């Protein structure tokens, strides 16, 4: 299957390019054409990694940013797509989480970062217009997707 090998070559290229920046790379998330690559990074390397992806590998398509509350810590997953999907994953502390913006590198991330800010209370440093995207005016209480907001 030349198709599969081509797709695997994509993954190889990405892993090679990010080798110096990442903590680990594994194919963990299940997806239709086979499992998808997940690259775990330290938070401070995120911008550097995205810059490599955008500038060296020509990745343009960010599908979305998924936040998750895995108490005690939070994770953010940046789902990219080039020929096939892959994910950058960073881990954030549960208390006062901060992440650097990637809007200047991938302008399409603007709304997703706002959503993450509203839903998880993760401050996105350097975002030009950081307000909650979907929450109603005057929302009180914890960010809705955090575990602390769980009702019994």
């Amino acid at each position, binding site marked *: 299957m030349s198709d599969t090998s081509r797709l695997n070559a994509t993954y190889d290229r990405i892993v090679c390019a990010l080798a110096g920046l990442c903590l680990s790379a594994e194919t963990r998330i299940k997806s239709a054409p086979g499992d998808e690559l997940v690259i775990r990074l330290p938070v401070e390397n995120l911008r550097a990694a995205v810059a490599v992806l955008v500038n060296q590998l020509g990745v343009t398509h960010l599908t979305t940013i998924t936040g998750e509350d895995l108490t005690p810590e939070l994770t953010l997953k940046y789902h990219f797509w080039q020929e096939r999907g892959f994910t950058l994953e960073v881990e954030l502390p549960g208390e006062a989480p901060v992440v650097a913006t990637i809007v200047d590198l991938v302008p399409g991330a603007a709304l997703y970062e706002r959503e993450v800010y509203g839903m998880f209370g993760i401050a996105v440093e350097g975002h030009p217009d950081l307000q909650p995207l979907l*929450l*109603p*005016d005057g929302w009180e209480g914890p960010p*809705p997707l955090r575990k602390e*907001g769980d009702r019994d």
Partner: protein
Amino acid sequence: MEQTRTYDRLPTPRGTKMQREEGPKACRKSLGPGAEGSSRQQIAGDSRTEPTKRRLQRYVDAVVRWARRKSPWILHYNSGGCNGCDIEILATLTPRYDVERLGILKEGSPRHADILLCTGPVTLQSRDRLRRIYEQMPEPKWVVSVGTCSCSGGVFKGAINVVGSVDQVVPVDMYIPGCPCRPEAIIDGLAQLLRSIE
């Protein structure tokens, strides 16, 4: 002669039917149809009760009621629904269902409308907006909640951002369950409402 109205009496939240009757709807009912036109004449008729005048009044009322039944203009507001009922409402305007046969027109401005069609559960963000639209509509007005979500909250009941059904925000005169309602159900509900305008 009419000044800007102030709304200090907001619709009562959902309760039993009796409780709701005490709200603005009940006032409307006691005034009878023909809100101010008739009230002015009633005052005139109070001093000298002339049978001919009263009979005339009855005829006028009958004509007005007939006109209201035959010309309901609708305004549609989606207060947080999934679109399904909205497109079914729009579908009632299109050739297959053509509600213009019943005189129904879809209006854009709340000031022109008689019937407010609400779809979807009421979200926190659109609650005040829904109330304002309701207030902007001139009397006599009716509210129809279209779809399961707007009748009771439906699948979104208990969601963190959802207030609940439409009748928690504005008084509702007709509930049409369905997810989404068929155009037939919407037309049927509207026809029932019009019949009750007697």
